[in-house]
């Protein structure tokens, strides 16, 4: 119960943080989410002239009050989707987000199914053992000897 409450509180706290990041993005976070078009790394990892050019554009747009989405849209319009470090959450890009999750779920289902079948195969079904009446009588006699 405590854990559920903690997760809920953390989730509620994350919403305003995400909204602030969208409305007032920082240079550092955008540099980590945008690729350098000539070096194959994010902008924050690159000092190439092409990366520096995009950093300047980002700084200008932040100063102009653009949101994170507006800045990214502007970059995508100019360079294409490949300028973003993470694939977009629409169109073909969705596949990159959902395919790993689908794979993990499918693998979990398969492992669960396998484990269930394996455990059932190891447990023999309970069988009612019927003793011979003479043997049962003898067993009762023997047990009675131990009774006080």
């Amino acid at each position, binding site marked *: 119960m405590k854990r559920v409450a903690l997760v809920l509180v953390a989730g509620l706290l994350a919403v305003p943080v995400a909204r602030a990041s969208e409305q007032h993005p920082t240079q550092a976070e955008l540099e980590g989410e945008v690729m350098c*078009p*000539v070096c194959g790394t994010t902008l924050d990892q690159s000092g*190439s*002239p*092409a990366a*520096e*050019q*995009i950093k300047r*554009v980002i700084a200008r747009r932040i100063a102009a009050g653009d949101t994170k989405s507006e800045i990214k849209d502007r970059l995508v319009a*100019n*360079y*294409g989707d*490949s*300028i973003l470090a993470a694939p977009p959450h629409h169109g073909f890009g969705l596949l990159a987000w959902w395919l790993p999750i689908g794979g993990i779920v499918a693998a979990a289902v398969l492992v669960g199914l396998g484990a269930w079948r394996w455990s059932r195969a190891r447990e023999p079904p309970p069988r009612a053992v019927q003793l011979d009446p003479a043997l049962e009588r003898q067993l009762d006699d023997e047990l009675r000897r131990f009774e006080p």
Partner: protein
Amino acid sequence: MARSARLTAQVLAVAVVAGLLVLLIWRVAHDSTANVSNALDDGRHPTAPAFDLERLDGRGRIDLATLRGKKPIVLDFWASWCTPCIHESKRLEAAMKQYGHRIEFVGVDTKDFSSDARRWQRKHGITYPSVHDGGGDVLAKWGGLPIPRIFFVARSGKVVGELITEEDLPRYLRQIAES
């Protein structure tokens, strides 16, 4: 039931392997190293890969295919962040004064911000038209980075050569002007 489940799993596994095989064949067939520059290195003269891109100055588009058979072309891949591009573009600008009536000079501004590119053209006095290849898709077909890259296309549409040393510029210009 167990048998049909096993059969389904086997069919799925074969389908996945077949899919991966098709993907592998497709990747090999669409070899990313197959580009104009590499073809020229191998001694071949491929047909210029077509493109149809917007002009930087906003005056419509340039469709390379429509120039085929009409005029030879000098294709200059550049960007405003590329320092050596300034020198090469200025040389082409000077060459255009001499050959502009016989050869089409086309710039391809690549992996660049279009507003910076326009400013760069004004600053350095580059007047031949350029198209905008922001994502670098066209550049990749011609050889990719580094830039500048300058190609010479004959009237027939075949790529005659790529400028490797500065001294080759007059020779290539004469060659395609006479094509």
